[in-house]
């Protein structure tokens, strides 16, 4: 079996965010980029599945300029079999989904996994858009995946509970929390092997972005915390009622 795993190249979760060029661009200076946290969990679970069913080839794909290659190499070091970079600036979610759909059609993949949400644009769009372009079912925010007897079994969180689904191939699953517990990290051997694994660069296809960021903003600075004495908690109740008017 073959799976296409869509990997975002995103700022480390501890990054302090800044904008540049009149607040029209994200300032990449001093930012460490990582594999999106959900995709990291997805990769971990797919490797467990590979160990279980034996026959599973994991292709990591990113739509991005050359600077994203270290992120793809990291996915290879963790255990992906090969990687594809679509050489383009990811203009918006629709543009990215179009590129990935094109790659999907060129290969002989059985299903696609994406993260449920990127931690830069927080769009939660690419996976579902891809599913609609390919006319596949989509299962969003999947918290568990297993493959048995030619069928996939997935679990997802719904409002106020969870749902277990059985799905025929092909499909798109967007991975959420619970997909795996602890992400795997690359071993020394994995890092060595990653250098020899194929990372293919393909040209982008024509697609028009439908959205554009015209300006970024930082949140308003918070006013200083007002402290209440631990021996006088009634004061907090009063402040929440009279000042914040929240209770």
């Amino acid at each position, binding site marked *: 079996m073959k799976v296409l795993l869509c990997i975002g190249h995103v700022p480390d*979760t501890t990054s302090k965010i800044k904008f540049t060029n009149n607040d029209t661009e994200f300032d990449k200076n001093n930012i460490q980029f990582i594999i999106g946290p959900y995709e990291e969990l997805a990769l971990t679970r797919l490797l467990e599945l590979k160990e279980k069913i034996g026959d599973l080839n994991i292709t990591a794909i990113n739509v991005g300029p050359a600077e994203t290659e270290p992120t793809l190499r990291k996915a290879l070091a963790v255990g992906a079999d090969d990687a594809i970079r679509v050489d383009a600036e990811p203009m918006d979610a629709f543009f990215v989904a179009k590129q990935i759909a094109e790659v999907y059609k060129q290969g002989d993949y059985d299903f696609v996994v994406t993260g449920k949400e990127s931690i830069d644009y927080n769009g939660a769009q690419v996976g*579902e858009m891809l599913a609609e372009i390919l006319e596949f079912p989509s299962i969003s925010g999947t918290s568990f995946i297993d493959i048995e007897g030619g069928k996939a079994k997935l679990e997802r969180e719904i409002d106020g509970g969870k749902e277990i689904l059985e799905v025929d191939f092909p499909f798109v699953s967007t991975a959420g929390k619970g997909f795996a517990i602890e992400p795997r990290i690359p071993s020394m051997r994995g890092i060595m092997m990653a250098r020899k694994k194929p990372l293919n660069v393909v040209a982008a296809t024509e697609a028009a972005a439908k959205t554009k960021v015209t300006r970024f903003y930082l949140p308003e600075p918070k006013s200083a915390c007002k402290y209440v004495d631990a021996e006088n908690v009634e004061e907090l109740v009063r402040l929440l009622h009279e000042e914040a008017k929240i209770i």
Partner: protein
Amino acid sequence: MSILVYTENWEGKFKKSTYELLSYGNEIAKMMNTPLIALTIGNVDDNELKSLGNYGAEKVLKISDPKLDVFTSKSYTKAIYEAAKAVDAKVVIFSNNVSGKAISPRLTVKLDAALAAGVMHLPTSTDPFLVRKRVYSGKGFADYELNADIKILTLNTNSFEVIENHKDTVIEAFSVQIADSDLSAKPLSVEKTSGKLLITEAEILVSGGRGLKGPENWGMIEEMAEILGAGTCCSRPVADLEWRPHQEHVGQTGKVVAPNLYIAIGISGAIQHLAGVNGSKVMVAINTDPEAPFFEAADYGIVGDAFKVVPALNEAFRKFKQGS
């Protein structure tokens, strides 16, 4: 032309978030000078449907088709697509919840539309269509320009107030063609953790961290939640250690919440935790460590031991509730 709002129902009932959504849609309808139409799928009685007219809906399209009794993103997208076409919707609005997140990107592709997910404010302009949303997990915001004839928005819960605006709404049955091929991901079973307040909907949340030492100490947290009519949630290590259910984990890799009041007890305030809660209107931190980063984000703080402060605070909240 119209503005279409997808009003999801839960066992035939609407929630406050449904009315927030309509109120939001109605303001956009005014900006664009076009009628507001609501769309429901499933069995909702006419009285409940009529209630949508109190928030500006001039018409309610009602789809009841047994094929849609089970939710699949593909079939729901198809149904809403047909409705959007029929009423020539220029803006389609969803709640930014599980189903809204699943349907809206698919519908965007089908309608050749442009999508902004997780908006919190009205568009600043409708031509060009500009709307602000949070990016970088709440560490920043961005103005998005939507460049397509049809715009799709998903609205965060608790981010827009309910505004009454009575219309004599008409209810119209709308039928759709759903093929079996639209239903390809069938649920085998559904497990409901019912009765509990959904943390993404709660107006007040009481949240506990590793500072609470163990699951046996959550009694006082639940007590506070009960007094305040609040939901409970927790930091990631608390869920990872299985002190609390995973549905309660908030933060960058958990749920994103934006209640009116967030009370953080024994939580250090790591950047990944704050990313999921910094949309809250007012935040309170209770922590023994005066240097805990949460105090930088909090509006109110108590430096003290949760095991002393929380019981005292519960007493004070109870007295306040009895007095008011």
